[in-house]
């Protein structure tokens, strides 16, 4: 991945030097081995800080909304899942395609620091290098190579779009990856098997952990409203009192608002400080849409109407007996 890292730096420097873009967005290494954060550089020499390693998980496309308000032309590095988010923002008319130059980065999968810590491999760890399916741990005592992808995020293991679906330039060769459709919704099926009281227990426990920090909303490419209904007291919809029903109301409504628009990038689960498996909510709605109205992947094709803003005359439904839709 380091080879590509150099390419990233070179491309950013070149873009800034000959004024292709006003600003470039990329990732920068922080203090610790797992610490990477988004950075916006306007000067060519700052390009040397850009990196491309196993922890560049942040989706940069959502920053474009603010950047475009300052009507700047921006160059951005996008992975596969980021590009899906980008398309969703495009479909919601939140960003202008011509004001963005996209450098596509096919991604083999990002490493989950929690999994590394769980294995205890983080003692004295300085750096992690990654090539296709091999991870090398650079520690004070020396290097250690481990094969396989057991340290990747769960969402990366199930990733169906490793290559960016939209880009102006591709900085690496495309990756082939077959992921079986069968077990895509295993997590949802497990919950569906529970009894109704178990399910309510499960979810009300999860929701009660929520501290309403809105991290899930801020990271989500499908949640790009100018003023969210939950921020608008005038909408009279719900409040932020620490009462169970408020969190349940928030999460059910949010899952419903991103229905048919969630690109399954898994960021909500990753950023949630309380560790609530929010993508299991979105997966359930995706599973239902696929079963009831035909397979639909948000963020892949900008021209195709989202399921909830279109209809077919003979649509199935899941509430009348002859509705053809299972319950």
């Amino acid at each position, binding site marked *: 991945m380091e080879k590509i890292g150099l390419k990233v730096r070179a491309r950013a420097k070149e873009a800034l030097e000959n004024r292709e873009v006003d600003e470039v967005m990329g990732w920068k290494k922080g203090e610790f081995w797992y610490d990477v954060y988004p950075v916006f550089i306007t000067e060519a020499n700052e390009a040397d800080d850009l990196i491309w390693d196993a922890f560049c998980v942040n989706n940069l496309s959502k920053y474009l909304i603010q950047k475009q308000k300052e009507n700047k032309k921006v160059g951005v590095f996008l992975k596969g899942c980021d590009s899906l988010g980008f398309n969703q923002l495009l479909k919601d008319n939140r960003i202008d395609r011509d004001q963005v130059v996209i450098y596509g980065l096919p991604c083999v999968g990002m490493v989950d620091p929690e999994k590394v810590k769980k294995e205890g491999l983080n003692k004295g760890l300085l750096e992690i290098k990654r090539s296709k399916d091999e991870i090398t741990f650079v520690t004070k005592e020396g290097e250690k190579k481990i094969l396989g992808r057991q340290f990747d995020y769960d969402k990366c293991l199930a990733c169906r779009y490793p290559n960016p679906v939209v880009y102006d330039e591709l900085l690496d060769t495309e990756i082939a990856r077959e992921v079986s459709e069968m077990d895509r919704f295993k997590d949802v099926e497990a919950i*569906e098997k529970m009894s109704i009281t178990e399910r309510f227990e499960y*979810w009300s426990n999860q929701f009660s952990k929520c501290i309403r920090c809105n991290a899930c909303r801020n990271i989500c490419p499908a949640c790009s409203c100018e003023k969210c209904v939950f921020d608008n007291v005038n909408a009279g919809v719900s409040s932020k009192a620490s009462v169970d029903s408020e969190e349940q109301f928030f999460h*059910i409504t949010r899952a419903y608002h991103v229905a048919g628009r969630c690109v399954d990038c898994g960021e909500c689960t990753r950023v949630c400080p309380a560790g609530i498996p929010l993508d299991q909510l979105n997966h359930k709605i995706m599973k239902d849409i696929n079963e009831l109205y035909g397979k639909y992947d948000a963020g892949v094709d900008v021209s195709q109407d989202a399921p909830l803003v279109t*209809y077919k005359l003979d*649509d*199935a439904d899941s509430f*009348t007996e002859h*509705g053809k839709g299972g319950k």
Partner: protein
Amino acid sequence: MSVEAKETVMGNKNEFEPLIVAFCCNWCSYAGADLAGTSRLSYPANVKIIRVPCSCRVNANFVLRAFQRGADGVVIAGCHPGDCHYSTGNYYTRRRFSLLTNFLEYVGIEQERFKVDWISAAEGNKFATVMNDVLEKVHRLGPNRKLRDARWKR
């Protein structure tokens, strides 16, 4: 023996009085409810009807707000697909509430508590049967504690 009669029989046993909020579309189901009235059919008094211009006006927030305020069951009634006064309104209702029906059940709400159905202006007795049926099921399930806002006193 309609539910009402049965209820008075076992009413005094427990004080559970179910509350059903029904959103009825002005052109079909509300007229169906009127017809149920004019033909003096009977369904329990616990069903309370809110008039909306079309079933596509009902927002998922209203359903959640009803459960939050202690409703034991929510019903949404619209025109039969193809009959909608606004021609395509109920096609969207069908998609929206197919997802919400499955999703509420996924989150742990009994599916008998949330009913969506198509009732035309000529189907007075279907309106009464649907309401009697929903109330009977909700009566069996008992009061709804889930999604209920503890601060709200009925």
